[in-house]
């Protein structure tokens, strides 16, 4: 066992408690970095909330609020089942598009597909 700093040892134990036995050794410093970034962002936000409430010390409620905001920002969940169902209902009510008579692959119109030229000729040089 290497002489790991205490934080890294804590992460090792968390991984072990979740049942993860095998992992790349690089995972530990990556998780450490992530935890450091996340905690510092949350605490900074919490301090701003405490300041806004004209308090000197950070309270638990500030930290809770900071966490909820951070989670909503960085770890966005997929839409809830109900929201998805509503969206699906709206989208599924639209009838199928008509099929145009075309040769070859049916591509989206030029501006939506990637077949357009992605450059413009500068007007200065056009007339010459």
């Amino acid at each position: 066992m290497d002489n790991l700093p205490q934080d890294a040892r804590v992460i090792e134990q968390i991984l072990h408690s979740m049942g993860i036995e095998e992992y790349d050794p690089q995972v530990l410093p990556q998780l450490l970095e992530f935890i450091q970034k996340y905690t510092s962002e949350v605490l900074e936000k919490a301090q701003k909330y405490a300041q806004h409430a004209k308090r000197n010390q950070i309270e638990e409620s500030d930290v809770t609020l900071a966490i909820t905001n951070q989670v909503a920002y960085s770890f966005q969940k997929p839409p809830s089942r109900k929201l998805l169902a509503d969206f699906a209902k709206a989208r599924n009510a639209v009838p199928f598009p008509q099929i145009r008579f075309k040769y070859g692959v049916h591509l989206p119109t030029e501006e939506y597909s990637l077949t357009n030229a992605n450059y413009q000729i500068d007007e200065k040089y056009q007339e010459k």
Partner: protein
Amino acid sequence: MTLRINKAIWEYLRHNGYRQTEKHFLSEAQIEDHTKELLLNQDTDIIDYILFSKNSEASPETYEKSYLELKNWILSSLEIFQAELFILLYPIFVHCYLDLIRKDHIKEAQQFFENNNYDHMAFHSEELAILKSIQNTRHIMENSLARNFEKYKFNIKLSSYSFELFVAFLQDKNFKLLLGIVNQFINIRVVDVKELSSGRQSKNDIEQPTAIITGEIQKDIDRLNSVPVQWGLLENCIQDQVAEMKIQQKFEEEQKKLMQLKRRKRKIQKPTIPKQENRIKNSTILFPRLTQKLEESIKEELVQAEELSQQNLPSICLFTFFHSEGKINCSEVSAESRYVVAGFSDSTIRLVVSCSQDGTARLWSLDTKSNLAIYKGHNYPIWDVQFSPLGYHFVTASYDQSAMLWVTERVFPIRVFSGHLSDVDCVRFHPNVHYIATGSSDKTVRLWETNTANCVRIFCSPTGHRGGITSLAFSPDGRILASGSEDGSIILWDIGTGKIIRKMHQHESTVSSLDFSVLDGNILASGSLDNSVKIWDANMARLLPDSSLFNFTSDFHSNEKSQQAVLLLKSFPTKNTPVMNIGFSRRNILHATGYFQTNK
């Protein structure tokens, strides 16, 4: 109904000590002073109950005590009932644990978990691992699995005998706690059975049924599964034309032979193709016609396809990628066997349509070797994409629990299929393009109508898959859907009824890919991460044996292990190559691709 509601309100007021309000309420609502009864309705369905008692009297020890008593009672009951009653134990375990955490008895909850989770390790190890990480009320709100447990009820089928026994037991010992949990979180459907089969199953049998959550009550699922589905092929489709061509060929050969032998000209009957049932008369989905040349070449190839059967096994060609372990994600061989394409972690691909973890699907041209269009609609990784058998439409399956239908012309989806409880891992078109099957990590497979995006079938069963669905395949005649999952089992579902025809459990690891042989669908091939490809006889599997129902709680028609072994025609192990993808080419040659796994 109102009587029950009134009782519930009175109960609540009494518990929380609102004396005055209680008196007023009693006088106005005119409730007689019954001692409160907790009844489980003896009707065939238990409708939603209002939670009768919050049970603040329940101390943490009562949870464990009642659970243990229930377990002991079940274990000591007759074998016939044991199998069914044991199913009840898992939901009760889960909700006791969650309840304890909700009421902040963290230590007792952990102890309860430690002591009792071994009973359920066999079938629910992943869920148990997730539950173990839930340590306080906040976690319950954030964890999606816990939220699913709270929102949706477990569906359990019980015979009337077992049900009566269970209710009698609960009322005897006055387990208000367990009754409350059962009322709130379990949806019991009582079925009348003439006689129970002798319990041949042991608890450790793979086929033992277990409780599952599907997001709907069983009654609705059954009603849904009886909606008629037109699984027949399209009229005048390529398969029909090829079949005609083949018959014509054979007829001409026979005539030639007869001429050579110079026998008297016997009149040969030209055999006709048997009429298929359930054909789709008026196709509601329009698609552009294939070019003449393409159609001719496809038909030519299909006519020359080898007819596979039990005696005539396919030849397999395995394409191994070296030095790609961990980097290669998916691969496929084109139907004309000209291209092998692979998707790698460093985002390079050479596919025609590809899907990616960045949430977009892209259309590529193999001729100009360039990207033609990007399709954005999912904001989350897309796990699977497939073109329809006739081109023009394609479906994607994504982490956001939905599948979407696109046409190559529009950059936004034209249909959204939502309803799964967990991310959708694989998606397949039915041969007649009118239906789409999706398999998800919530262990169920759903069938959707392409036109309306309505869910027409939910393939789930207590004896069904134990892990997420990783692969799907339709039989060429459109009747059967095969699904393979992470637990190594393959199930053949009958699309018409929604029931299991066969369950095959011979793989030891995730079944990564399934395919039926072309045209006749006699052979089912499965590739798995346990380094093997297995060939199964799909024809024999279709014959429903007439032995009586083994156990009424199963949707099986038979599940003896010996019959399973007969289905497996051949197993082809590789030494170190987990198989990622298999497919039958148009000539019925089986292609497989895998990556070479270096030993650790």
